């Protein structure tokens, strides 16, 4: 689902010129400023949700080590805190930050000021109110009971749909008003994500599915929410940031198109791999496993392309936090997808399903790929929109080391713990308790990592506060390369 291409001759003429004439830095600055309000609002709300989601994630993690922790009040029990964590992180943190990323990228790529910016502001607010209502209801015990679709379908979901549609309208209006003929690959990813998200979210929330079919539609939704919403906007962002910061065009523009169209054409078939072993017709599972294996094509296309763009220039990461995070995110995309393909094989899934391995996979995807990509985006975008530099490179360094290191520990611990747990669950001679004991030390490690990551989030939020609300170390001029600085090393590289 991408752009209807215009046949308007006037536009074609002006666009031919534009692809030859380079945009001036001043013009770029004007595009950045055109979306200032919604972009800043979205990032602000996203960081607030990130902090709330962190508390919920920490609590969920600690409860694995101390099951009696905070069980007196119903709203503090695992069954409510855990889905609240998922929804706050996915719809509050990631999606709201992705709104801002889209609203910042589109004017730059379409070479036109953001259209309907105020509608986008209202959209972000409506979305946030919807999510707030949904989370409050969820904690009070009212949810739809389907994973990823827990938010109340009567009071919360309609607001989410309206909010996303308003932001999407602004994105598409900007696209329609574009001054370029050829669409850069990031536009394909970002613009397509909005109709995709609206269709799957509406379809997933319909109240009339029964029994097994409800589970099937549930995972149709959740998987596409991952692949056609969370993944796509972040890939769009990475496809922009990598070449931009490195200073050379993407290695092969053709491969980037193969990646996009491969995903667009085949991703929808993947969802049923979440239900391997479930009471579904075997052809559906088999189709989905086959499609999962076929995902190797777009995944490898994206991986090779991004790697070849940066290869030989990894030293640039020392200068740029945005690039550092974008590169780790890009590598994690390849890693999580390959892990996912492995997990979709029946022989592997038999061991890993119902274990912490899946949680390791989730966070490799949603943290090391999605969240780090969004952090990278914020390091790049915020100074340009605020016209101020991040005040402290020490805080940048602390943030990246804490969240990166913490999450590696999280994923490795649960990866190992999950396999041990799965093998123990399958061992005929062992009781269920043995599987619990085998996972316990790894869960404790996860809680340690949770504390480390949370510290990283606090550092980031504090630094963003310093940047946005104080004038400490602020620079009022607008350098072209805010990122050109060795944040991760102190000395000049030879």
């Amino acid at each position, binding site marked *: 689902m991408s752009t*209807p291409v215009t046949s308007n001759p006037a536009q074609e003429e002006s666009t031919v010129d534009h692809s030859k004439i*380079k945009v001036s*830095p001043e013009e770029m600055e004007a595009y950045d400023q055109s979306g200032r309000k919604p972009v800043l609002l979205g990032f602000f709300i996203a960081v607030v949700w990130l902090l709330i989601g962190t508390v919920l994630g920490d609590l969920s993690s600690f409860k694995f080590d101390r099951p009696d922790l905070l069980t007196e009040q119903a709203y503090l029990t695992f069954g409510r805190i855990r889905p609240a964590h998922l929804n706050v992180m996915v719809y509050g943190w990631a999606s709201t930050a992705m709104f801002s990323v889209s609203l910042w990228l589109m004017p730059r790529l379409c070479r036109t000021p953001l259209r309907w910016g105020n509608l986008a502001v209202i959209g972000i607010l409506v979305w946030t109110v919807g999510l707030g209502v949904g989370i409050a209801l969820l904690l009070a015990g009212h949810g739809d009971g389907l994973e990823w679709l827990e938010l109340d379908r009567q009071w919360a979901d309609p607001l989410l749909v309206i909010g996303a549609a308003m932001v999407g309208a602004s994105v598409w209006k900007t696209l329609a008003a574009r001054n370029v003929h050829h*669409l850069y690959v990031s536009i394909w990813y970002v613009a397509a994500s909005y109709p995709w998200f609206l269709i799957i979210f509406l379809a997933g929330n319909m109240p009339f599915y029964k029994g097994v079919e409800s589970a099937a539609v549930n995972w149709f939704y959740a998987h596409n929410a991952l692949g*056609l919403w969370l993944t796509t906007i972040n890939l769009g962002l990475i496809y922009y940031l990598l070449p931009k910061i490195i*200073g050379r*065009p993407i290695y092969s523009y053709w491969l980037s198109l193969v990646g996009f169209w491969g995903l*667009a054409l085949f991703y929808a078939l993947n969802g049923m791999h979440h239900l391997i072993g479930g009471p579904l017709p075997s052809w559906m599972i088999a189709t989905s496993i086959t499609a999962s294996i076929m995902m190797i094509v777009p995944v490898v296309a994206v991986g090779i392309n991004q790697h070849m763009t940066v290869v030989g220039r990894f030293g640039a990461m020392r200068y740029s936090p945005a690039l550092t995070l974008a590169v780790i995110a890009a590598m994690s995309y390849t890693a999580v997808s390959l892990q996912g393909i492995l997990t979709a094989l029946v022989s592997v899934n038999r061991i890993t399903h119902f274990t912490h391995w899946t949680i390791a996979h989730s966070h490799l995807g949603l943290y090391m790929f999605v969240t780090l990509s969004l952090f990278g985006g914020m390091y790049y975008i915020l100074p340009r929109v605020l016209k101020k530099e991040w005040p402290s490179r020490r805080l940048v360094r602390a943030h990246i080391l804490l969240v990166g290191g913490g999450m590696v520990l999280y994923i490795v611990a649960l990866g190992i713990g999950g396999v041990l747990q799965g093998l123990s669950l399958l061992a005929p001679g062992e009781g269920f308790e043995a599987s619990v004991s085998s996972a316990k030390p790894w869960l404790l490690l996860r809680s340690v990592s949770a504390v480390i990551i949370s510290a990283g989030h606090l550092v980031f939020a504090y630094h963003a506060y310093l940047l946005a609300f104080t004038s400490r170390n602020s620079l009022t001029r607008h350098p072209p390369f805010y990122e*050109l*600085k060795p944040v991760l090393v102190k000395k000049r590289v030879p």
Partner: protein
Amino acid sequence: MFANSFVLIVLTLVIGLPPLVFLFIALAAGQLDDAGSTAESIFEAGELRYSRPWETQKQSQERVQHYGSLVSNPRWEWERWL
């Protein structure tokens, strides 16, 4: 009852088929014709000519060959960080 989930098949087609149509529209409109300049369209004027401190001599030479002589970044702020 569930041997064929009509709903799921329709949903999958609703998501999977339109991209095929759009791919053909994009092809017909020449969207995929000019990969080189599309890939370069994200750069600002002069951006590809800035010398970059992390590049090797060979990489800088390649940059000169492709985009013309190097210019130093006209702004001063970022150098404080080196």
